[in-house]
């Protein structure tokens, strides 16, 4: 299996507080990896480190076999941040304009949208099922619909890996189901490696093939099929925590 993301012995501190110490992570091509962990356990930090948005004090990170310092193929990496939902809802931009923004590198010096770009926009909007909304203002869509637009925006640059930070926060159940069906399509049909931070351990283990648990300043990777919820809770919170089952 080809390794597409690798973090070797990384340590990271916010000022003096260490959040990761000597942590390792390997992601293989075609993985759908969930990243879980308690609040403040450095899930988002880990993603930002992997993307070079934060620099580790120690250790090395490789994307597609290249160390981050030498990595240039950013068009093949997609990132949907938590912040994406915080945009100004009255921003006067159509879905088409938002999606086209990610073609920046491909548009040449004068940044004209050509026929081939328009085709590409239609194609990605079709994948996320939002073709009819092309001319709509982004702020007029629901949270779930906006999220699909941001996925389309990422898809337009033909990414091989997509990183997502809590994409399901504030999304209703129906949209969540639709989101996972879309992820399956991207992962299985288009062969895109997906890495996604989530706080919903129950759902994420059902949908992904591997789960990385971040806790105690370390990263532990499990196969989703053999992932044991109770063991996970013990390992990251300690023995004193008991799981309470909700019986109704």
């Amino acid at each position, binding site marked *: 299996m080809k390794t597409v993301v690798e973090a070797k012995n990384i340590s990271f501190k916010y000022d003096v507080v260490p959040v990761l110490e000597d942590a390792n992570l390997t992601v293989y091509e075609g993985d759908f990896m969930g990243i879980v962990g308690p609040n403040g356990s450095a899930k988002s930090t880990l993603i930002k480190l992997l993307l070079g948005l934060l620099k580790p004090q120690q250790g090395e990170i490789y994307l597609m076999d290249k160390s981050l310092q030498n990595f240039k193929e*950013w068009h093949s990496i997609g990132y949907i941040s938590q912040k994406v939902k915080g945009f100004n809802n009255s921003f006067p*931009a159509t879905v088409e304009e938002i999606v086209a*923004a990610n073609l920046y590198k491909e548009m040449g010096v004068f940044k004209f949208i050509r026929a081939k770009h328009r085709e590409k926009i239609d194609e990605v909007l079709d994948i996320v099922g939002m073709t009819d909304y092309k001319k709509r203002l982004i702020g007029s869509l629901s949270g779930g619909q906006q999220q699909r637009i941001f996925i389309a925006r990422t898809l337009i640059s033909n990414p091989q890996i997509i990183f997502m930070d809590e994409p399901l926060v504030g999304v209703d159940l129906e949209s969540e189901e639709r989101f996972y069906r879309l992820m399956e399509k991207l992962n299985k049909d288009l062969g895109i490696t997906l890495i996604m931070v989530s706080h919903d351990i129950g759902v994420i283990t059902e949908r992904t093939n591997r789960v990385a648990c971040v806790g105690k300043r370390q990263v532990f990777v499990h196969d989703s099929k053999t992932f044991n919820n109770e063991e996970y809770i013990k390992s990251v919170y300690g023995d004193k925590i008991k799981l309470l089952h909700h019986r109704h």
Partner: protein
Amino acid sequence: MPEILTYSFMQRAFIAGIMVALICPSIGIFIVLRRLSMIGDTLSHVALAGVAAGMLGGVYPVYSALVFSVVAALGVEQLRKTYKDYAELSIAIVLSTGIGLATILISMGNANAAIFSYLFGSIALVSSKDVLVVVILSIIILVSILLLYRGLFYISFDEEAASLSGVPVKWMNIYFIILIAGTISVAMRIVGILLVSSLMVVPVAASLQIAKSFKAAWFYSVIFGLLSVIIGLTLSFYADLAPGGTIVLSAVGILVGVFIVQGLSRSITNNRSYESSWEKI
């Protein structure tokens, strides 16, 4: 030819005014969307210090204003890094410095009437040299916006994503703030230092009410800017008023007009849907 255009000073005022009407809202739309509305005011106060310095030192005031406001623009960028969590503080510091410096330089000189024309704009005093400088600088600014438009759009919407998709965010932010400084120096001759930032912001405010895409928002902003300048200059000529005031109040008038038309069309639609639901019953 209408009488107003037979005067050569009015021809000059219109040429310069139209250039200003093209660049102010084009820069303004990014200023508004990035929530930087105060930056125009700040840099224009520093430009005033530049004008006063130019008059004292015998330098063409547009050039000295340009140098002062570009330096101030870079200062704002630098201070913004120092006070990361207090973005508006960098603006306040530069604004205070600008006003302080302007007050001292003006009191040192003896050219209050000339300063006045830069503060409130002037049509009678626009020289051929002014027009030439305005046209050349405006073309540079317009071409820059056309080339940077996609990047600025992406940065305004989502700076982090823009950076990942290859937009040179840092470089573009610095260039953008220099463009703002340039626009102020270009526009102050006609609109006046105190009102430049209004012409950057008010037409955009009106266009945001009706635009259904970014391109439309830009287009309407420029159209409203052009209308404001044409109406404002005409009023200024016939009523003998300072053009800065008439131009900006025309822009405000257009904004109010947009609100009224919107209100009317909303009440008509509501009425229709009320009538049609009545018919169904």
